[in-house]
């Protein structure tokens, strides 16, 4: 797993995600309080990740205030106001691994590589998002304080 050859091979794979080495984190009272990067994320980049279907995938299930994005899903709570409903640490835990909050959730674990079955070779050993991207999305979600936004049904 940690052989140099494996590292080299993975380093040349395209894609957003990092291999093998995940940042360690602590879960306390339903939160991951510390930033995975030690830095605050960038909400502008975070918004782009959330809106982009192939990257964040968020709008396949969630609605939110994205007037430019049509065909948002309705399988999960709206993102509108989520920054008021949840703390930064709660959002971070839900992004990293929502199954830690609710074992039955359909939300994919965005920062986990273990305990997954039959992952396709192209995605094996990779997280959906890397640590800076998780922080960007968390920073963006924290800006969503308005409960009334995104109610376009």
């Amino acid at each position, binding site marked *: 797993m940690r052989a140099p050859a494996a590292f080299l091979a993975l380093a040349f794979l395209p894609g957003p995600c990092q291999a093998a080495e995940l940042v360690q984190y602590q879960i306390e009272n339903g939160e991951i309080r510390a930033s995975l990067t030690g830095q605050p994320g960038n909400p502008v980049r975070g918004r782009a990740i959330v809106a982009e*279907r192939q990257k964040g*995938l968020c*709008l*396949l*299930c969630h609605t939110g205030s994205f007037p430019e994005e*049509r*065909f*948002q*899903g*309705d*399988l999960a709570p709206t993102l509108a106001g989520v920054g008021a409903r949840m703390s930064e640490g709660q959002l971070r835990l839900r992004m990293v691994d929502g*199954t830690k909050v609710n074992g039955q959730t*359909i939300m*994919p*674990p965005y920062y986990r590589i273990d305990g*997954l*079955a*039959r*992952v*396709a*070779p*192209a*995605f094996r050993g*990779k997280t*959906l998002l890397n640590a800076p991207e998780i922080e960007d999305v968390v920073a963006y979600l924290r800006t969503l304080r308005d409960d009334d936004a995104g109610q376009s049904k």
Partner: protein
Amino acid sequence: MWNELRSAGVIAALALCAGARAEDARRSGFDDMGPGTQAMQREDSSNPGMLSALEGESLWSAPAGPAQTSCASCHGEASASMKGVAARYPAFDTASQRPLDLAGRISQCRDQRQQAGPLPRESRELVALTTYVGLQSRGQPIAPPEDARLTPFRDAGKALYSQRMGQLNFSCAQCHDENAGGHLGAALIPQAHPTGYPLYRLEWQATGSLQRRLRNCMIGTRAEPFTYGGLEYIELELFLMQRAAGMAIETPAVRP
């Protein structure tokens, strides 16, 4: 005698269906399609899946193998001999001691009876023959055989249906039981009843099998699909056919 018994069984099954219908919340994917796509399926002249069925019809009587036998040489008119067959598959194959889906049975017959070699999975010919045989059961209720030898395979299919898979970590059940009727992006999540296979999928621009459709879902969850013809797909089909028991066969269906 056997025919009488079987008729009685069918009547009993139909009566059960009729009784259950009032509370049956099951929906075929057909029920949720737009009127245009429904009309395309309903009218044989506009249903693109019928092209595959027609090709299958000519293959049915095309000689193959050293003895130049065709399906028709043994089975005669498909409209008589194949009626209701697709509604009972997958079935247990004594020779291989495992369940076979309809396509697998056709390919096995081609290989062992006609000695013309197996037909590759998802090949045009195999899809065509399967569609033609499936068409002979159109309108009939799905009637999985009561064969105890199938039970462990069906149970394995049920377990697979509930197993999370892929980087996105979804199980079939999470979408098609718990969230059926909801929308993944723009797409309505159907209840995933295998009533119409092989079917013409507009997204494919082709007629394809249930295994091809299951494969699409697995790729969508970023899972490694099972091998075509693999036992896992047949186990899943056994479970799905049981889950859809009593619903009408639509082959060849049309889906978005």
